[in-house]
């Protein structure tokens, strides 16, 4: 396997955008190519496009060739859309990485895009309810907010986690997203404001949930030995892990312990040859506040059941034990499904390059993980990155 470098990237502003799906693609694609010297769209041999539900949100399929057309890319080795719901962007990253590592291609783009705002938002919610088993869970209106609400309820029931502890995750991530100019939400959230926000699905309030978001992003990869042709500050891909158990709610191994996450973490650390203590930055999939709490636990940052205490004690802040979501997370930046993993990865690159605002910069950060979950948290995907 060849060592792989991420040499640059670009992204749109995220949020409720006055722009179509294809305009988001063009904005992010231009930003990506403008970010890297000595490369043109014609150099790209492999194009992977993370898009969760373009057929429902934008009434368009066969979207990877559409991205290629709009960006002037002529893929000669590999082209495909990758769908893994909330982890669709990470699927694109994994396949782009595999294309370079295997020698199939010498320049690959991992792209991600989602246009989620629709004229009738109930229709957007319909899309989100065919993610679990549509005929047996979706039919009960079981979409992400109720599923994670019940996860939170069980975690509170079994471990005594509190609503205040969950709200602290929202406070932290919204704090960092005030310093992210492309974030959907750029206002500070206080504990009181979070706790008093409208109820979505108890025990989850609005600020416990990531939003509905439009956005797109892309990153470019080449073999490590070619990186210096394009940049003095590449980022290496040093490890990865991914695991899945089941899909429907009834097939969960456990509600309060994400077994596939523990498997994926173990594999990511093994392949990167690091221990969890060596991670400086963790972009963890905080689609809901309870998710981040359970991720502290599965990563082994604290004991099982003590995730709430971990944030209360300041563990996941910059300057704490580990910087979790210094980008602002999904809670602060929004969650444009297919684009999310690419946005995380590009932000890590900018962290390593010292290109992010000071207040959210992790100084001397050398090792980072990016994590996405999907479905009823029954798939977990992780990438490990190192400063080049």
């Amino acid at each position: 396997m060849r060592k792989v470098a991420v040499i640059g990237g670009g992204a749109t502003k995220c949020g409720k955008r006055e722009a179509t799906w294809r305009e988001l693609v063009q904005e992010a694609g231009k930003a990506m190519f403008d970010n890297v010297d000595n490369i043109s769209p014609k150099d790209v041999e492999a194009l992977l496009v993370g898009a969760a539900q373009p057929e429902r949100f934008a009434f368009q399929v066969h979207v990877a060739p559409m991205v290629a057309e709009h960006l002037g890319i002529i893929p000669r080795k590999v082209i495909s859309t990758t769908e893994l719901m909330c982890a669709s962007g990470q699927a694109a990253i994994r396949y782009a990485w595999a294309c370079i590592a295997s020698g199939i291609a010498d320049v690959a783009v991992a792209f991600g895009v989602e246009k989620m705002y629709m004229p009738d938002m109930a229709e957007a919610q319909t899309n989100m309810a065919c993610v679990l088993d549509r005929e047996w869970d979706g039919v009960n209106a079981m979409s992400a907010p109720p599923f994670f609400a019940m996860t939170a309820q069980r975690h509170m029931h079994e471990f005594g986690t509190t609503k205040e502890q969950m709200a602290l995750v929202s406070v932290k991530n919204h704090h960092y997203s005030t310093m992210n100019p492309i974030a959907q939400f750029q206002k500070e959230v206080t504990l009181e404001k979070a706790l008093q926000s409208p109820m979505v699905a108890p025990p989850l309030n609005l600020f416990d949930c990531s939003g509905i978001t439009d956005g797109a992003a892309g990153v470019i990869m080449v073999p490590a030995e070619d990186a210096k042709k394009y940049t003095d500050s590449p980022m290496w891909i040093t490890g990865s892990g991914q695991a899945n158990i089941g899909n429907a709610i009834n097939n969960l191994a456990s509600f309060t312990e994400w077994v596939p996450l523990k498997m994926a973490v173990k594999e990511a650390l093994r392949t990167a040859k690091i221990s969890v203590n060596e991670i400086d930055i963790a972009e963890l999939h905080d689609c809901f506040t309870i998710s981040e709490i359970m991720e502290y636990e599965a990563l082994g940052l604290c004991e099982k059941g003590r995730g709430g205490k971990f944030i209360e004690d300041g563990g996941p802040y910059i300057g704490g034990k580990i910087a979790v979501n210094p980008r602002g997370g999904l809670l602060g930046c929004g969650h444009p499904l297919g684009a999310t993993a690419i946005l995380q990865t590009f932000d890590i690159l900018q962290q390593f390059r010292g290109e992010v605002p000071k207040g959210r910069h992790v100084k001397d950060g050398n090792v980072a993980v990016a994590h996405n979950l999907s479905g009823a948290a029954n798939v977990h995907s992780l990438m490990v990155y190192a400063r080049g």
Partner: protein
Amino acid sequence: MADVEFEKIKRPENIKLPFMLDFYPLEDEKNTRISQFFANLKKGRLTTTKCQQCSKSLWPPRIVCPNCLSDKLEWADLGVEGELYAFTETKLGAPLGFVQDAPFCIGIVKIGGLLISARIDNAKYEDLKIGEKVKLKIVELEDGRIFYRFRRIN
């Protein structure tokens, strides 16, 4: 204004609920090999497939056992009373087709050794408790299709 033709065109004002916005499965034997599940439900019985080879109870009903790949499955009753394992109430973010019901409760019911998701009727979030008993309830759609729910007993 340029000299070009303008014409107003018409599209149907109402269209039948399209299949792609209908959460309920097609239930009869022309469409599915587990139509027996719905036939049993019509008689007030909540059943699922059980593997004759490895004895595993499978949910949702299937035609091949994922545990041992046998296709010798039989129908088994799950009972009509379950226990609430977790629950919530959809207040915001209900999908099209369910918006008119909001707020409504949904939960995970422990029944016949399985954890299955379901609507919980006759209940407000504040009244429910983990471990509470709930009873099978059957709903009928306008077109004759049916589905299971649970309801609060008290």
